[in-house]
Each structure stands twice: as structure tokens, then as C-alpha cells.
């Protein structure tokens, strides 16, 4: 597939936003049970604002993917069948939750609504946090399923796609949170840094699993099934258009195989290995910056590696 920058930015940016929100609410939850020192509402508000910033940036990027962005509102229509439609609904809902969560913290309007049997207070940010967490996971699932549901894109058609969206988004969000806390809430920096490392390791495992799986894939389709001629040696001579077509632009990465191979080795280093080192060394901001670059490369590779069966029909001109 052709890696479109709009989609690369969309998925990586909202991933950070989702992960960051999850990190914030994790801190709040731990704090509610006294497992972490309680933080000032401004910390959550600032974090939510940053998360929202990533989400808005992702949303903006997504518009560049649309031919007719002015009609984007229509895309909520088919939520019963389309993961894309679901994502379109869940993303704003999640953004609303993040906004409200941050606003509640910022304004300090955080009345206790109920109490758990243990006596722990359930206030409005907790409700918003749970809702936001549910939406964040829903959004990960939607985003992942957009790709994972395309069954003939075999590189994507695996639960690993969804898992990795969660892990990669989560890791980048927690690294971001660690970076943020280093400045705004040093008491939880260690906690967040720890989780950032755990998630980064898990993401490394998940992504490596996908790489291993994909390296072993056997394409289900071949020229034999594509044109229905049973012969071991079929070679295309002409695809019917010499100046290129939508089919040659949308479904091919257009780079040399060597370049793709390089990206395949570079992105795990940037997205996982180097950030882990930087986190250990306590450079959380740098860790985030490098990891985000790594994720851009990872997402580029995610698209580039996906070999669409239509490509069987677009191999030669003459």
C-alpha cells in the first residue's frame, strides 16, 4: 500500500493522545486508592489539553486524506458495518470525554457522585475517566479494525494489528506522560516512566510478533487465481495504461525494496530500543521525540509492507 502521510499522522497522533489520556487516568486511579501521591488538578488539565492537542492534530491530518472533507460528516452513517464509520463516531466522543475530563480538573468542578462499597469516592472525573478509558480502547479497536478487517490484506488481517495499535499508542502516550510528569509532576515520573518502559517492551514484542508472522505469510492470491489461468508461469506484459493510474499510485509504496528493508530495521530501533535507553537514562522528552519518529517509520512500514492482491494486476507496462 502507498503510505499516505495523512493516515500515518492520524494514527500515530491519536495513538499518543489516547495513550496519554490512559496514563493520566491511571495516575488518578492509583492516586484515588492512595497508591500514588495525589496530583493537582492542573496536572490532569494540562495533560488532557496535550492529549486533546494530539487528537485534534490527528483529526486535522485525517482531513487531508479525504477527497471531499466538507462531506466528512456523512461518514458517521454506516456505523453498523464500517469500522471507519465507527472510528469517526468514537474519535469525537473520546475527544469530548478528554475535554470534559480536563475541564473538570481545570475548573476543579469535581463533586463526589457516589461512593464505592469500600468507601472510596466516585467523583465526576472518575466517571469521565472510566468513560474516556472505554472510548480510548474503543478507538484503538476501531482504528486497528479498519486495517485488520480487510481480509485479503493478509499482513493486516490479524488480531496483532489491533493489539499493536493499543500497545504502540499506549507506549507512546505513557512515554509522553512520563515526559510531561518529569516537568509537571515529578512524584509520579518514576511510575509513569516504569509503565512507559513496560509498554514499550510489550509493543516491541507485539510488533515483532507481527513482523515474524508477516515474514511467514504465503499470499493467498496469485496470478493464477487473479486471471483464472492454471499455469505456473504467468507474466504480465501490459497493465493497460502506461502513464500510471490510481491503481499504481494508491497501492504501491513506490520505493526500492532496499529502502523498505532499511525502514524495517530502523523503526524498531527508533520506536523501541533507543527510547528504552533514553527512559532508563531519564531523558523522557528525548525518548518521546525519538519514539514518535520511530512510530512514523513504523506506520510507514505498516502500509508499505501490506501487499494488496490488486497489485498482481499492475506489474508491467509495454
Amino acid at each position, binding site marked *: 500500500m502507498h503510505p499516505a502521510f495523512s493516515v500515518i499522522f492520524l494514527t500515530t497522533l491519536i495513538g499518543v493522545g489516547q495513550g496519554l489520556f490512559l496514563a493520566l487516568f491511571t495516575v488518578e486511579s492509583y492516586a484515588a486508592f492512595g497508591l500514588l501521591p495525589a496530583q493537582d488538578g492542573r496536572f490532569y488539565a494540562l495533560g488532557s489539553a496535550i492529549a486533546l492537542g494530539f487528537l485534534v492534530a490527528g483529526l486535522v491530518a485525517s482531513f487531508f486524506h479525504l477527497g471531499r472533507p466538507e462531506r466528512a460528516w456523512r461518514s458517521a*452513517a454506516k456505523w453498523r458495518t464500517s469500522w471507519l464509520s465507527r472510528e469517526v463516531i468514537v474519535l469525537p466522543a473520546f475527544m469530548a470525554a478528554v475535554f470534559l475530563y480536563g475541564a473538570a480538573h481545570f475548573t476543579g468542578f469535581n463533586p463526589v457522585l457516589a461512593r464505592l462499597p469500600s468507601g472510596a469516592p466516585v467523583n465526576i472525573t472518575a466517571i469521565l475517566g472510566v468513560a474516556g478509558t472505554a472510548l480510548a480502547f474503543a478507538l484503538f479497536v476501531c482504528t486497528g479494525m479498519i486495517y485488520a478487517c480487510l481480509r485479503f490484506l493478509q499482513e493486516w488481517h490479524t488480531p496483532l494489528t489491533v493489539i499493536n495499535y493499543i500497545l504502540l499508542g499506549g507506549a507512546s502516550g505513557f512515554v509522553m506522560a512520563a515526559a510531561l510528569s518529569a516537568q509537571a509532576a515529578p512524584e509520579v515520573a518514576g511510575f509513569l516512566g516504569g509503565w512507559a518502559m513496560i509498554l514499550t517492551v510489550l509493543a516491541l514484542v507485539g510488533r515483532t510478533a507481527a513482523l515474524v508472522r508477516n515474514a511467514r505469510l504465503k499470499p493467498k492470491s496469485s496470478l493464477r487465481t487473479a486471471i483464472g*489461468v492454471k499455469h505456473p508461469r504467468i507474466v504480465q506484459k501490459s497493465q493497460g495504461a502506461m502513464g500510471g493510474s490510481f491503481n499504481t499510485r494508491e497501492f504501491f509504496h513506490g520505493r526500492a525494496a532496499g529502502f523498505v528493508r532499511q525502514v524495517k530495521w530502523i523503526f524498531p530501533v527508533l520506536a523501541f530500543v533507543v527510547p528504552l535507553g533514553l527512559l532508563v537514562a531519564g531523558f523522557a522528552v528525548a525518548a518521546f521525540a525519538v519514539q514518535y519518529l520511530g512510530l512514523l517509520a513504523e506506520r510507514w512500514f505498516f502500509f508499505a509492507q501490506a501487499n494488496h492482491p490488486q497489485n498482481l494486476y499492475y506489474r508491467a507496462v509495454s
Partner: protein
Amino acid sequence: MTQLALVIDLNVCVGCHACVTSCKEWNTSGQAGPLTDFNPYGADPTGTFFNRVQTFEVGEFPNTETVHFPKSCLHCEEPPCVPVCPTGASYKRKEDGIVLVDYDKCIGCKYCSWACPYGAREIDEQQKVMKKCTLCVDRIYDTSLPEIDRKPACVKACPTSARLFGDVHDPESEVSKAIRESGGYQLMPEWGTQPANHYLPRRKTRLRIFDDELVRADNPLKIEGKPLPRPAKSEPSLDDVTSW
């Protein structure tokens, strides 16, 4: 329930591209139009077409088959491009099974094209909406046209009548008979998309000559008093190897 479709006979397709440009010509000024061309007079000209003819070589010299292969939307019975569309712009008509795009609803997200294993959809990069073969839905029901013209433009144009058009659910239709009798098949059956369009394979006619057909009583050489063809005396015979 009706399922309109094309049946493409690779046995007679000579790869002339008549279906390609007749489709472009009808549709660029039709409901799907315009079908934009970029760099029409410059480097790497490229435009939107609903139908392409491709060429494949099968086998190795001298046992080579050259296969011309027209490809357009296959109007799948289980079209994977339809459920993924977030706006409902992509839909399959209940009444005749044609898969269409509502150009007023399409947001140009290209997701449907990702969901099509055949590469049948092409975005119009000037109109910014997804387009594809409509089976000339704006011709086939047009009662102001004479009956014989109510066919997709490609079917009408095809000089070898390699393109048959009809209802593949009607067992008595020309297309169903062709599929049944000539071994019609679907593309990439492994994905379960159930394409409505079918392809008919190459068929070979062979001739067998028996030796006795070469030496007959009415051989004209006889009239001339000439000996009939017979093996040279020097060719091997049983006399060379046995004496009983």
C-alpha cells in the same frame, strides 16, 4: 433476484481496447462523468477509466499463450467494498445487483478501493470521488433508447462480442448458459467475494489426421498415373529385424 453481470470470453478477446475507450467515451459525458485525464498531452498521461485491458504471457516459448484480459468492477455478490464505506455512498442495488457509488455521498476516503481485491475502483482525482463501472446503468434502463442499444457501452462496442451481458441468476439467460457450458469462472475465488462477472477460458480446436486419409482411392495422383505416397523403401520395417 436479478444479478446483472458481464461474462468475458477470453477465448475470443483479441485485446483491442474497444471496451476501454467506448466505456470512457460513454461515461465521461454520462452520470459518472467527467472521467478526468491528467497530462493528456504531456509526460505520463493518466486518467480515470472504468475498464482496462491487460496482457499476460503464459508459458515459455514456443508454448506461449498471450492472454488479453479485460478487467472492470465485477459486481460481487458479497462486495467487500460496500460494508466498509462509512457514508453509504457505496452500495449494491437490491433490484439488479449492480454495485454503485453515490457520487454525492462519497467523501473520497478511498477505503472501498482498499477493500476491493481486484483494483476495480479508481478515484477521479479532479472530482475527488471514487468511481467505477456502473454497468452503464444510465443506458440499460433508458427506454428512450432502442432495445438493442440498452446495453453497457463496452458490450455494444466489443468487435468480437467477447462481452456478454445479462442476469447470472436467471439460469436460462445467455450469460448463465455461457458460464455453464463454457466453464465460466470467477476471479480470486479464495476471498469469497462471489464476483458476478465471470470469465470464459480459452478453448482449443484440434484436428487429427489419420494415415489412411492420405492414401485414398480417389487420390488425384492416380489419375496422372503417378504412384501414391508410400514410405520410402529404406524406412525401417519388420524385415530389418526378424525372419520368422
